[in-house]
Each structure stands twice: as structure tokens, then as C-alpha cells.
């Protein structure tokens, strides 16, 4: 496993209020890391910095050069990453957007565009023709469980389906790293369970390196490889815990003693 994204000593304050202090974070390729913390701790600020929408007061965000967006529009998602180029440099993407796919808290589908155009939006933004973009997006609809919804408007979809469209759109941004900000928080518990299951399956297939935010401990244990605890004021990463379990993890795992043990440890850390 090699590092693909590094955040070094990120600090940020709003006026007098320090929000983030000396955050260090790394993400390996294909890894799913969860940022866990109570609401309002500064998770979203951290994501805005990582995605380049906001500049930190100090610190830097580095992305492995060969994974920066321009060269790597993923044509074939099953293609393994080239592990030869271990030595290559990191690109400083502090305050530069467009290198990392970012899914914000709400699904943010455009109500005036049909589903396929919503999913294909990042492709169109990057300069692809509308037809080409639609064709490319359409080829993923089955895998994302969206067949038959292409010509519908977002209002016609249920919450779970809308989330899938948003996820497909995030994926089609074509970057190797994705940031997901509470991607499942808007869903009700039952829908959430089924989306988790589906999401883990898709993640296996598309091998996206993902950082995601949640304040739901169960969710974090269920889907991540590693959990970082964001805590304090100003917030820092106080603990890290590796969830060493085969994936996909089903309902059996949720009810096992191991799961409870993880949960107990995390609760103590929080």
C-alpha cells in the first residue's frame, strides 16, 4: 500500500476561533478512512481544505503526482494502479480545487437536469460533449443500481436513489481520491442499511480511495478500514484505530462481539 494523499500540519481559524490545529492525515490507495467526530467539530472545514475550496492558515495538502486529475481520467475502472512509480513526487494541491472528488453533505442534485445529466455533470464541466458524457455516464448506471432512471428528474427518485446518483456523479469526477461528507446521514435507518451494503459492494469494484465523514460509530466500523477520531477545540486527530476485518462486512459482523469491542474502544476515545 502506498500513500496517495497527505495532509501535513493543517491549521485553520475563523477570526479568533481556532477550528483545526496541526492535523496530519494520510490516505493509502484504495483505502477507506473515516473521520469520526461530534457535529460541529470542524470536519466539514477540514474537507473544504482538502478539496482545495478553502486555504488553510498553515500546512499543506499533497497528492501523489501520478494520481492528479489531468493524466488520470479513468477509462477503465478495473485497471490496477501502476505500482512501479513508487518514487514519484507529490503535487502540492493546497488551495487548488479540481484534483479531488468531493461529495457534500446534501445530495445536491440539480432539479432541472434529468438523472443522467446530473451524473454526467463533471464530465461536461471538464469539457466533454453532452452526448459523449451521457454515453459514458450511462455505462455505469447498471453497476450503480440506477437502470431505468436515466430520463427521470431527481424529484422522482427516493432518497436512497438520489444518494446513488450523487455518488456516481462524485465517482465520474474521475479523481483517484474522493471525499464524502456524511454521505448517508440524510437517509432513514432502513434505507441506510441497504445503501451501506450496496456501497461496500461498489467500493470493492471501483477501488476508490475514500475519506469520509460521519458521526455514526456503527457506520464507521461497518465500512471503513481505518477510523480517525477528530476531537477537541481546536480539533486535532487524537486517535486512530484500524478495523481489521474482511469486507464486505455483513449483518453478522454488526452483531458480533468484535464489533462491540471496536465500538467500546471508540466510545472511550471520543
Amino acid at each position, binding site marked *: 500500500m502506498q500513500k496517495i494523499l497527505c495532509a501535513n500540519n493543517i491549521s485553520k481559524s475563523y477570526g479568533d476561533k481556532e477550528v483545526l490545529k496541526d492535523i496530519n492525515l494520510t490516505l493509502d490507495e484504495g483505502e477507506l478512512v473515516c473521520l469520526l467526530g461530534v457535529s460541529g467539530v470542524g470536519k466539514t472545514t477540514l474537507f473544504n481544505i482538502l478539496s482545495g*475550496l478553502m486555504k488553510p492558515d498553515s500546512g499543506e495538502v499533497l497528492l501523489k503526482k501520478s494520481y492528479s486529475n489531468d493524466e488520470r481520467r479513468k477509462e477503465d475502472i478495473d485497471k490496477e494502479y501502476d505500482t512501479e512509480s513508487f518514487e514519484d513526487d507529490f503535487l502540492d494541491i493546497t488551495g487548488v*480545487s*479540481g484534483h479531488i472528488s*468531493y461529495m457534500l453533505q446534501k445530495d*445536491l442534485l*440539480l*432539479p432541472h437536469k434529468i438523472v443522467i445529466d446530473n451524473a454526467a*455533470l463533471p464530465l461536461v464541466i471538464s469539457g466533454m460533449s453532452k452526448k459523449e458524457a451521457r454515453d459514458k455516464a450511462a455505462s455505469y448506471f447498471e453497476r450503480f443500481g440506477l437502470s431505468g432512471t436515466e430520463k427521470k428528474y431527481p424529484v422522482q427518485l427516493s432518497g436512497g436513489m438520489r444518494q446513488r446518483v450523487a455518488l456516481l456523479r462524485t465517482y465520474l469526477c474521475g479523481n483517484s481520491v474522493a471525499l464524502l461528507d456524511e454521505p448517508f446521514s440524510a437517509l432513514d435507518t432502513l434505507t441506510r442499511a441497504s445503501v451501506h451494503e450496496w456501497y461496500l459492494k461498489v467500493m470493492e469494484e471501483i477501488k476508490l480511495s475514500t475519506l469520509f465523514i460521519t458521526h455514526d460509530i456503527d457506520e464507521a466500523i461497518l465500512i471503513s478500514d481505518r477510523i480517525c477520531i477528530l476531537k477537541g477545540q481546536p480539533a486535532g486527530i487524537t486517535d486512530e484505530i484500524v478495523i481489521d476485518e474482511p469486507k464486505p462486512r455483513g449483518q453478522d459482523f454488526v452483531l458480533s462481539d468484535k464489533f462491540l469491542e471496536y465500538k467500546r474502544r471508540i466510545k472511550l476515545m471520543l
Partner: protein
Amino acid sequence: MSKKYSDNKNKKYMDIVVPCIVLVAVLVIWQLACTFSLVPSYMLPSPVRVVKAFINDFDLLMQHAKTTLTEAVLGMVLGVLLGFVSAALMDAFKVVRQGLYPLLVLTQTIPPVAIAPLLILWFSYGIAPKVVLVVLVSYFPIAIGLLEGFESVDCDLIFLLKSMNASRWQIFWHVKFPSALGEFFSGLKIAASYSIVGAVIAEWLGGFNGLGVYMTRVKKSMSYDKMFAVIFFVSAISLILMAVIKLIQKKAMPYKYIRKQDE
């Protein structure tokens, strides 16, 4: 769900029936008041006489309506273009907004009747001063509607597009403009009714053709039945114009009229 649906249908039905009943009642009372000579007939013509006057003068009315409609539609199109450009500029450049917005509000405090004679003085008796007046009255609701639409866009949507490295133009085209369509059409509907009224007012004050000119003529000849006929005709034209806009809106924003997914 089916109950809710039928309730909706029922409500829609009542929305049409109730005002119709009230309208018919008013007409009947009016007709009775005239038949029993409660009001002198030279002051208030009966509805039947108004309808007769409308039928007798139908060709003439249509001819005048053509002029008025041309002025209104032409003025509105120019007003929309102007409104769109200035709203886009005000949205894009803060300084334009700071400079233009108070001026815009100020111009709205000037009554159109007051500037119409000036416009006639400047642009003579043809179609030009009418079109200019229509532009002036229709511009404001469109510019303000669009500007508010642009500004009400969810910031997170703009963040999302920025994270995709979208240009300002792309953000405008994919997010801001479509999001402002609802407000734009609301403004356009107001502009439509203003524009007919604006054209008629400008015609009152001088011209050769148009429903306003017809109005001043029948007033001078004291044909109040014709006066009422043209008044109703003008409001009918405004209503039709608004209905046309609503139709265009339905075509342009089909997603607004789709029933939401039942979960």
C-alpha cells in the same frame, strides 16, 4: 395516496367553479340593476349592451389590439433582454450592483403616466414612445426577479461545481440561470400585465392606433358601452398573455410540475 389525489382533483375543480359562480352572480346583479333602472343607463350600460358593443366593434377592436399587442410584446422582449443583461452583470460584479440597484428602485417610484408625455415629446406619436414605456415598466420585475433568483442559489451547489473546477460561466449556465427560472417567470407574469397597461396608458396620451386611442375616442363620444367593452377586452388580453407565459413555463420547467416520488 388515491384519496389525496382525488382531494387534489376536487380542490382544483372547486378552484374553477367557485370564482365562476361569483362572476356570474355579479353579472346577473349588474344586469338586473340596469333592467330595473336602478342606475341611469348612460352612466352604467348593462352587460348585454356591453357585449353587443363588443360584437359590433369587433373588427375595429382587433385592429387596435394588434397595435397594442405589438407594442407590448416588443417592449417586453426588449425589457427581458435588458433585465437579463443587467441582472447578470449585477450578480457578477458587486460594484455594478451597488451602483445600479438603488437607481433601479428609484425609477420605479416614477409613475408611468408622468413620463409618458415626455416620451411622446421625445419620440413623437408613433409606436416608439409606447415601446419605450413598456420597456421601462417591464424591465424592473424581470431584472429584480432574475437577480433574486441568482442570489438564492444554494452556496453548496456552487461549492460543488467549484470542486469540479468549473468556470464562472459554467457555474452560471449549469446552476445559476436554471435555478433563477422560477423567479424569472414570476417576474415575467407581472411584466406582462404591466406591459399591456403601460402600452394603453402611452396610447391615451397621444397616438393614431391602439386600444388606448380607441378608449379616448369612445370616451369623447360618451359611448360607455364601448368603453366597458374595451376595458374588459384589455383585461382579457392581459389574462391570455399570462396564460401563454404559464404555458411556456410548463414547457421550460417540466420538472416543476412533476408529482413528487411517494416514499
